[in-house]
């Protein structure tokens, strides 16, 4: 294995630059290093001005998402040696505005995520005296996969529709809506349906499937969206033929 590897890191300072440019750094190529280690090496030893987000460095917080050689990846889970002999191109997440260097502005995702009501909606809360909500393992199984999302938004960077359509709510948000819709404790499916099925919230999706490929937690957002489309379509027909079914 070679001694070193080159990293081409996107640099952008809004006060100075019109658009991002790549700056090359040489870092040691250690067998156990991930791209995040290389970036921290650069920040500690070479150029302290490089700016990027990271936190847990073990693939559970979702902070360190970046484009590595054109693919959205968690940099704490992407080994440097898989890109040998390099160079490795590290850029900020695609389809989001760039604040500086490798940091992107996530407000659009946050707004859309909040819109789907990602919490348990109950018509009436069960009083504490009645005890906990009980759920069988089968009921847990229904939504468990979609609950694994760490909000890293790699799926948003993989989805061309998100890049092209400003109204598209996005893979993670819809997967989260499905997670709560399928939860046996939740009673908010109708409310979410009203919000999502309007205004091309979900219908912009053309099942490209890139989101599922990019997801580091195997949430399969693409599958969840298609399932949601089916539910929404059946709901549409049901409320058309039996008007009293709505709400």
């Amino acid at each position, binding site marked *: 294995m070679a001694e070193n590897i080159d990293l081409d890191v996107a640099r952008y300072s809004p006060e100075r630059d019109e658009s991002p440019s790549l700056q090359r750094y040489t870092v040691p190529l250690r067998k156990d290093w991930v791209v995040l280690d290389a970036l921290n090496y650069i920040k500690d030893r070479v150029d302290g001005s490089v700016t990027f987000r990271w936190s847990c460095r073990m693939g559970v917080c979702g902070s360190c998402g970046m484009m590595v050689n054109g693919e959205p990846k968690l940099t704490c889970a992407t080994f440097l040696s898989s890109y040998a002999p390099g160079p490795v191109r590290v850029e900020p997440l695609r389809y989001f505005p760039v604040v500086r260097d490798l940091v992107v502005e996530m407000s659009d995702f946050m707004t859309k995520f909040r819109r789907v009501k990602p919490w348990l909606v109950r018509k009436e809360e069960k009083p504490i005296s009645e005890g906990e909500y009980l759920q069988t393992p089968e009921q847990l199984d229904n939504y468990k996969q979609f609950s694994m999302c760490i909000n890293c938004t790699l799926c948003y960077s993989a989805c061309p529709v998100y890049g092209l359509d400003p109204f598209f709510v996005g893979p993670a948000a819809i997967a989260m809506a499905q997670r709560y819709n399928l939860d046996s404790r939740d009673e908010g499916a109708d409310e979410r349906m009203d919000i999502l*099925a309007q205004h091309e919230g979900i219908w912009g999706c053309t099942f490209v499937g890139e989101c599922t490929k990019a997801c580091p937690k195997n949430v399969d957002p693409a599958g969840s969206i298609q399932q949601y489309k089916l539910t929404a379509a059946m709901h549409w027909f049901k409320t058309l033929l039996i008007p009293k079914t709505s709400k």
Partner: protein
Amino acid sequence: MAKRPIEPLFWTLFSGGGVISAFFVPILLFLFALALPLGWITAPSYESLHHLVSLPLSRLFLFVVCSLPLFHWAHRFRYTLYDGLQIKHLNEFINVICYGGVIVGTVVSAYLLWNF
């Protein structure tokens, strides 16, 4: 009260068209546009084919096979134009071409099969 969206209907028709075209279109296209004209298979006589198509069940089947896949094309092509060429601002024009084409095709197939 929020307006009732039309997209779920379009998506259902698109899915139905996708299933129909996935199952029935390959063999029909292969037989009638390739194997028979090029003489790879001995053609059935005109009378037997005419008789087969004139049966009510065949007419219904052919109506479905000619109209639903067209809808599948319209819906899919509309989104391909939106995303592929980024011409969503021309959406009225695109909708007319796509869904208008489907309506024309459906009407033509209904007319042809009714008067067969």
